[in-house]
């Protein structure tokens, strides 16, 4: 499908958002900002603050709120609930805060405690009833939302042998994925009796997995593909179409499997990857570059392959820690960097042929 009369794809810097006084670690777009409201972006970082960004009537982006004085160390990750009414923030202070967003204001309504060390990531399930966190203490915690801003810890999962870098729920099923400094990717599901288990572990030895720290993961919209990125400078694409939320039976031996490895595009650690609703994968890395990939539909080789659409060199002055496509405008990409800025990019031209 030609979008812009066949012109080559270009990633144009549309906005540069300043305000954070230290590196920006993570970004989250509100999936449901409300009828008539424009996109809302949350950013968090080493300055212990969360900033909320909105577009003004004249098209400029403004910081509408600063959430601070709740976490006393770095805020490493932030995530919106599917209904857009809650924002969870994970911090190096070992806690996860829950903020209620109503009438344009934020109030901290709960603090989840229990991890022994820095909390690295937080993620809401698609149903919005489950929340997952992970930490340098090697554990993954699953919380269930209760009435009255209460959160019950329903599971504490040990299994990773090192620091857990990110947790992310499947976009449809109640299946959770965690990635770790131990180079592995673990998949967690409930066995139907409210007992959570690791149902698959993806490693270098057994599954063509990563050879160093796995930093992040992202699913496509349907949840049948996943991308992971790593300190080994590669991105890996996985077939996640098998339904691991079903208890395994003797005749059901399905599992997730490796499809493709994207190598040679980044020359330093890849810290972030994100799969858009238009099936474009963005990656951000320690080489200060953003890459965009799409499946190569003209390829004759067996199985899918992915091609580079573009590489934006020097997208930031320092490492890129997070890239996220805007859900309301799938041609807008946000990026966060050690240089203390958030940038908004417009993808123009023909990216998908």
């Amino acid at each position, binding site marked *: 499908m030609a979008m812009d009369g066949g012109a080559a794809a270009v990633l144009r810097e549309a906005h540069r958002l300043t305000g954070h006084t230290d*590196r920006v670690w993570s970004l989250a777009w509100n999936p449901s900002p409300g009828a008539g409201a424009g996109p809302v972006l949350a950013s968090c970082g080493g300055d212990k603050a969360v900033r909320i960004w909105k577009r003004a009537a004249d098209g400029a982006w403004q910081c509408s709120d600063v959430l601070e004085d709740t976490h006393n160390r770095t805020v490493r990750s932030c995530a919106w609930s599917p209904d857009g009414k809650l924002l969870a923030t994970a911090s190096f202070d070992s806690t996860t805060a829950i903020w209620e967003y109503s009438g344009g204001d934020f109030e901290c309504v709960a603090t989840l405690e229990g991890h022994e060390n820095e909390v690295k990531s937080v993620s809401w399930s698609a149903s919005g009833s489950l929340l997952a966190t992970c930490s340098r203490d090697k554990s993954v915690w699953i919380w269930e939302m209760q009435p009255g801003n209460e959160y019950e810890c329903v599971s504490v999962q040990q299994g990773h042998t090192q*620091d857990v*870098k990110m947790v992310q729920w499947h976009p449809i099923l109640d299946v959770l994925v965690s990635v770790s*400094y131990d180079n592995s990717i673990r998949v967690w599901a409930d066995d139907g009796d409210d007992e959570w288990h690791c149902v698959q572990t993806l490693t270098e030895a057994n599954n063509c997995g990563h050879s160093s720290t796995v930093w992040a993961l992202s699913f496509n919209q349907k949840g049948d593909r996943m991308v992971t990125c790593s300190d080994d400078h590669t991105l890996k694409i996985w077939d996640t179409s098998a339904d691991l939320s079903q208890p395994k039976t003797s005749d059901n031996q399905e599992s997730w499997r490796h499809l493709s490895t994207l190598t040679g595009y980044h020359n330093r650690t890849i810290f972030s990857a994100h799969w858009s609703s238009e099936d474009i994968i963005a990656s951000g890395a320690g*080489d200060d570059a953003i890459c965009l990939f799409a499946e190569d539909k003209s390829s004759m080789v067996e199985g899918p392959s992915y091609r580079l659409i573009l590489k934006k060199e020097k997208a930031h002055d320092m490492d890129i820690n997070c890239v996220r496509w805007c859900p309301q405008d799938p041609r807008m990409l946000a990026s966060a960097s050690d240089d203390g800025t958030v940038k908004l990019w417009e993808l123009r031209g023909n990216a998908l042929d």
Partner: protein
Amino acid sequence: MVVGLINANPVVYEKKERRSRQAPETTDENAAEAIDQLEIFDHIRDIKDPEHPYSLEELNVVTEDSVEINDELSHVRVTFTPTVERCSMATVIGLCLRVKLMRSLPPRYKVDIRVAPGSHATETAVNKQLNDKERVAAALENPNLLDIVEECLSPTFA
């Protein structure tokens, strides 16, 4: 600090005479001057060992040849040799090197720190930890550890 020293009897090497920098070949005083190996070494040579009143240079933890630099690519790699093979101070020394270079070099620089191959029992694990910038950032938020690092770096400001 710890009960008993990790390394009770370090070998102390003679400090290499400090060479003055050569005058630039070009007389164009507006020309950019590339960052070089000696400049990096001068930044790190006087870092104090966490345990002893000697510099990393005096203990041969770092030498001029420890520094590999590519100014055009904005990349530095420092290879250091802990004084004993099971030195638990290796990560602290590596952290001191990283902090010193982080503060001294332009932000465009990518810094890699590693233990000299074969010189430390848990070399792979130490190297991975020293080059995980998130764990480095978290470690530097620990006030006790940051105090130790600042103390080790204080002679470099003299």
